[in-house]
């Protein structure tokens, strides 16, 4: 039955109220979070402190079994929690850790789950990712970092790049080739690597949005046997494609604060247009600006309805429409829309949008920073890759 209303019971309404009360209490007023690319140390500390409060309520692992630090709550409760976090611009849950957790829940051993999930759930342990390599971006199947068994240990060698959050992390999820003979993605395994292990070196890479990504070098890093997540040689389907690659790259089945910035930014730009007068008239009454905003509104609303579609598909198990293409389609659309959105917002605000801070900056410089951040729309797989997957696996066109 068609329904777009997540909280249709008093219990769910109360739950929303509980989440909102927590956010009102715990989010420092006016503080904004720019997630992955924010290298402000004070910001990071506040971010961590907030997560740990969320973790203390067991809301990071809201839907996980209690033995792993969760509360065993329902998907719709998580949706509502995510909505509120998104609306409040709360720091996004530790994104890499959440992907690792998803992998652990599906493919981890009980011991692995017991070992790693509580740390993620409490906010105590941060995870970074080691997927991309200098020669291996969208085509992860071509990676060359390798691991071989030496007795009961895996020995890891290679280099990872563009590692989001790695310099903030204690652990890293690393994809490595475990059969030098097998081609492509058929011999890739996933390892859970403590970053204080001997043989690991990390160098910073600075990006256009003032953030740090990382190069990580592995030189004969010895890992105990239970560092392997899932089956050997099967990470491509089990971890990366089945979960990591998709779940890393929302919209998943619920809104997330990171992507939801697009909604909040549009609101901010609209407010700016209401408050700012050019030639004595609010920008909002300029017919051209109005139409530009309306086209952005359409795209942003389309993205919001795509969240509903993803959730409906995931939870009802029935695909809306004749083909199971929603997730890739949403990703392709979002990745293409995002930079266009940022560009149009800059055009609407005009030449002063380029000022980065201080009293002459528009929107406190947030839009300018957001624009630079939009250059990272490749993260989690380029739009070209999403289109290719949509065309071939989704619509059956030949590879």
């Amino acid at each position: 039955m068609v329904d777009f209303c997540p909280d249709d019971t008093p219990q769910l309404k109360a739950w929303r109220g509980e989440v909102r009360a927590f956010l009102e209490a715990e989010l420092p007023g006016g503080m904004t979070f720019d997630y992955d690319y924010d290298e402000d140390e004070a910001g990071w500390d506040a971010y961590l402190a907030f997560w740990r409060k969320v973790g203390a309520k067991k809301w990071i692992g809201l839907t996980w079994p209690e033995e792993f630090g969760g509360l065993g709550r329902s998907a719709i409760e998580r949706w509502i929690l995510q909505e509120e976090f998104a609306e409040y611009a709360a720091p996004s849950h530790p994104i890499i850790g959440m992907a690792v957790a998803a992998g652990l829940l599906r493919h981890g051993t009980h011991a692995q789950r017991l070992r790693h999930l509580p740390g993620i759930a409490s906010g105590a342990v941060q995870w970074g990712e080691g997927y991309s390599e200098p020669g291996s971006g969208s085509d992860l199947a071509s990676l060359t970092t390798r691991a071989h068994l030496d007795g009961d240990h895996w020995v890891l060698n290679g280099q990872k790049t563009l590692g989001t959050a790695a310099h903030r992390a204690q652990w890293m999820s690393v994809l490595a080739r475990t059969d030098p003979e097998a081609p492509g993605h058929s011999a890739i395994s996933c390892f859970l690597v403590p970053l204080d292990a001997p043989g690991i070196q990390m160098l910073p890479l600075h990006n256009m949005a003032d953030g740090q990504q990382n190069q990580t070098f592995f030189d004969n890093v010895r890992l105990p046997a239970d560092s392997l997540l899932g089956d050997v040689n099967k990470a491509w389907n089990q971890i990366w494609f089945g979960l990591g690659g998709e779940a890393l790259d929302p919209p998943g089945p619920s809104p997330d604060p990171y992507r939801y910035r697009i909604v909040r930014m549009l609101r901010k730009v609209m407010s700016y247009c209401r408050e700012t007068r050019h030639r004595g008239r609010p920008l909002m009454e300029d017919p051209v600006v109005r139409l530009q905003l309306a086209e952005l509104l359409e795209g942003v609303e389309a993205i919001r309805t795509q969240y509903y579609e993803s959730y409906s598909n995931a939870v009802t198990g029935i695909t809306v429409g004749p083909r199971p293409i929603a997730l890739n389609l949403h990703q392709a659309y979002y990745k293409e829309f995002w930079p266009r959105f940022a560009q149009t917002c800059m055009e609407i605000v005009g030449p002063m949008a380029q000022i980065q801070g201080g009293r002459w900056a528009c929107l406190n410089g947030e839009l300018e920073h957001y624009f630079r951040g939009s250059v990272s729309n490749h993260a989690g797989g380029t739009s070209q890759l999403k289109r290719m997957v949509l065309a071939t696996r989704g619509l059956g066109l030949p590879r």
Partner: protein
Amino acid sequence: MSIDLNFNEQQQLIQNTAREFFQKHCPIDVVRRAEKADEEYPADLWRGMADLGWLGITFPEAYGGLGCSFLDLYALYGELGRSLAPVPHLECVALAGTLVAELGSETQKAEWLPRIAAGEAILTPALMEPDGLYGPDGVTLSARRDGDNFLLNGVKLLVAYAKSADRLVCAARIGTGDGAAGVSLFLVDPKAPGVSLEKTTNMASAPLYAVIFKDVAVPTSDALGEVGGAWPVLDATVMKAAVLQSAMVVGAGEVVLDMTADYARTRVQFGQPIGRHQAVQYLVTDIAIEQNLTRNLALRAAWRIESGRSFLREAALAKACASKAAAAMTFAAHEVHAGIGFMLDYDLQLYTLRAKHWESNLGDRRHCLERAMAEGGDDPLPHFQHA
């Protein structure tokens, strides 16, 4: 149920029944033949739809209707879009009939609704004027009180099925000004003295007319709803129909997507299926994306209507998206098909030319975008909870 984007059982039944019905009774040859036929729509097809109750699908049972909900109707419209069924359902049932049901007196409802439902009467709206405006300011056709009559003077364009119609539901203006106040609806016999019809063909072979009103006397009893106060219901009815028009775009888009993906899989050039070329893959996925955006936005608007929520903003967004999709999907399909798609023998053009009509019907993209902004007021992006 909380979040669920799937039709319920009744809607699935309507969808499946309609798909089978149109596959059987309205294969693409029927669409082609209707383009050349003298009759404005295939009478047997219309009768078949009447037999299934679809001509009164949302009318109250007391007037021969099925009393179905808006989402039931919405399910039917996806199939009308898929099949390109050349019938006046949108005009006669979703617009004119619904206006009678919403605004009509007991007498008017009793006179027209059962006959529409039975397929025995055609009513069609006469809304647009040469300026091409969709808002209340587009209604300038003058209605002047003259004893027991109103005298109508002016021009309506793009009036579909006017020649077949038993009555036009004509929007007219009483008094001066250009706002919502003053907009009135009248049931006008297109054969009445002073009414003249001029056929104005469009590329979609729609039976469109210019209708010229010259001192047309309409009895006061043929006013539909409050004289001067018809706009709010007219507007809401048009916006609901715009959601149905969007559903047609979604349905037709599925066919265009299938047709184009099939062609891309099977057409070989440069030694391989053209669908292996990324340029072609982008075009095919463009269709899928436009169709998806429209489907989600239209379904949300339909749900808001169904559940009694405010819907004008969401309906406007849906139709804005549908208008773009109508153009973009068929454009992409032609890019993939190239020469063969340009030929009348190939079926793609049937979709393309109708999509062009639908693109501006009941609100073009610009109007709908402006409307969405206006309806959003100070809160154009409401919180999820209220969404």
